[in-house]
């Protein structure tokens, strides 16, 4: 209907419909409320317009009315909140087993890396119907990874990972925007998301040149940097055995227990002394500044792949 004058962008992910439904509800509610108020104003202004021989009638106010028009809006507000919070919770909790794509932002481009090792710049190819989780970090300032057609957006921060996920539903080419102001070429930091039929996607994957999967790259970096001298696959190493660490609670030396998520792995590498594993000495060297963001991603992907149970298992996300 609105081909030439669209009111919303393409709806190309499982989440987009939910967001639009809530949005339409809000638009209707807001239109109704504004109309109600405008009508009241107009009617009062005309009906009680100043005339000779008619005086204003003094009215003090009415607590009953005032309470009504505070409590009723509050109730409506709480409904809106709850609806929005549910959607947000879904948007923020990636399902188990999602394909993990690593994103590195820098002024002013997006660098993406698929688990199979394909690298892309300012383009993201994904198949229809698969859950994709983006694990994102920035090399410099804050950026924001925004795909309007999927109704998702998440700031990308230096020094840590943020994540978001989607499942595309409609093949096509969609905008990818940087939504957080990041300097001169902020508006040039755009790209596209190409959603493909699974078969075409497989062909695309096969056509690309890669130097091995992300995790296997990680493994060779793990060897190069000498991580393997301390982290061995038995219990003899000076550092803990990393197999099966990801996603599990870790007992720390100072008594805390933390869940080993991506940010934990990242911090364990860039600043090992921040959280020291119980039973070990803080002897691991600081790798901050020695590894690039891409190498870090590969290392994290590698450590995650060491999970015997399930590759890419997730925290307590909802089952899909």
């Amino acid at each position, binding site marked *: 209907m609105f081909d030439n004058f669209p009111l919303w962008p393409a709806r190309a992910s499982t989440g987009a419909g939910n967001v639009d439904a809530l949005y339409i509800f809000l638009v209707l509610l807001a239109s109704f409320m504004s109309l109600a108020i405008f009508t009241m104003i107009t009617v009062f202004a005309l009906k009680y317009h100043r005339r000779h021989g008619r005086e204003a009638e003094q009215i003090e106010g009415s607590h009953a009315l005032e309470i009504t028009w505070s409590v009723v809006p509050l109730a409506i507000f709480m409904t809106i909140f709850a609806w929005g919070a549910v959607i947000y919770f879904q948007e923020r909790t990636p399902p188990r087993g999602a394909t993990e794509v690593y994103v590195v932002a820098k002024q002013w481009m997006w660098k993406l890396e698929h688990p199979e090792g394909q690298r892309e710049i300012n383009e993201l190819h994904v198949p229809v119907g698969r859950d994709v989780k983006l694990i994102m970090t920035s090399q410099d300032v804050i950026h924001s990874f925004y795909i309007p057609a999927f109704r998702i957006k998440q700031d990308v921060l230096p020094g840590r990972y943020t994540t978001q996920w989607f499942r595309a539903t409609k093949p096509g080419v969609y905008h990818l925007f940087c939504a957080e102001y990041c300097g001169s070429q902020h508006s040039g930091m755009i790209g596209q998301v190409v959603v493909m039929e699974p078969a075409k996607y497989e062909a695309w994957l096969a056509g690309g040149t890669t130097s091995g999967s992300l995790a296997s790259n990680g493994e060779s970096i793990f060897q190069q940097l000498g991580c393997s001298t301390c982290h061995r696959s038995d219990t003899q190493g000076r550092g803990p055995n990393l197999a099966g660490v990801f996603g599990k609670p870790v007992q*720390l*030396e*100072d008594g805390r227990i933390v869940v080993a998520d991506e940010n934990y792995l990242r911090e364990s590498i860039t*600043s*090992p*002394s*921040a959280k*020291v594993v119980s039973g070990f000495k*803080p002897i691991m060297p*600081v790798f*901050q500044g020695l590894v690039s963001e891409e190498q870090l991603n590969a290392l994290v992907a590698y450590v995650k792949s060491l999970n015997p149970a399930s590759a890419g298992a997730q925290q307590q996300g909802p089952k899909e």
Partner: protein
Amino acid sequence: MSDSPIAVEHGPELRHHFASVEQQRDAASLGMWLFLATEIMFFGGMFCAYLIYRMWYFNEFAAGSRSLNLKWGTINTIVLICSSLTVALGVRAAQMGKRKLLVILLILTIVFGLAFLGIKGIEWHEKYEHHHIPGASFDATALEKPPYSNGGIDPSHEQIYFSLYFAMTGLHALHMIIGVGIFAFLLFHAWKGRYTPQYNTPIEIGGLYWHFVDIVWIYLFPLLYLIDRKPLG
């Protein structure tokens, strides 16, 4: 408006737009208290940063705190407390109209204030010599690492402690400098005998400011110096 603030009908201190001396004094005192409320929020921003980083980087904060000079810190706290006493006594002297006593107490306050700043200077200089100033020349290797529990120290996180240390003590010192300025002003007028049992509001509200700066230090001292002073080993 060229009319001088001194209206003829009232005493010389009453400004024209107030109805009475009480009203004027109450206004001044409320004004100062509100100003102090803004000061709480001003330091509050830094306390918030402090709270979060101390939670995150406790080891580094502990090590940094250990490297501060406890002796100087304690002495400085005592110096400030003494200055608060002289201020409180000064307000009393002004209320009783004892000009000479007031002048002496104000001088003492200023001396204590300057002593505090001097000692602060010595401490900062020590930090400079030990390369504990955040930036390119920062060096955390000489820091004592608490050996119990977990002892790892990340030098970059250590810089956050020292950044906060310098920001907090620096802005506190700035307040002290302003305070010394205010008291020099009060001293001048006290010398001239402007303050009487009827009119001593400036001394009173100047005093409020000074006490507030003292209170800030009362918190900074444990927060910065006493994070971790347990015996090693």
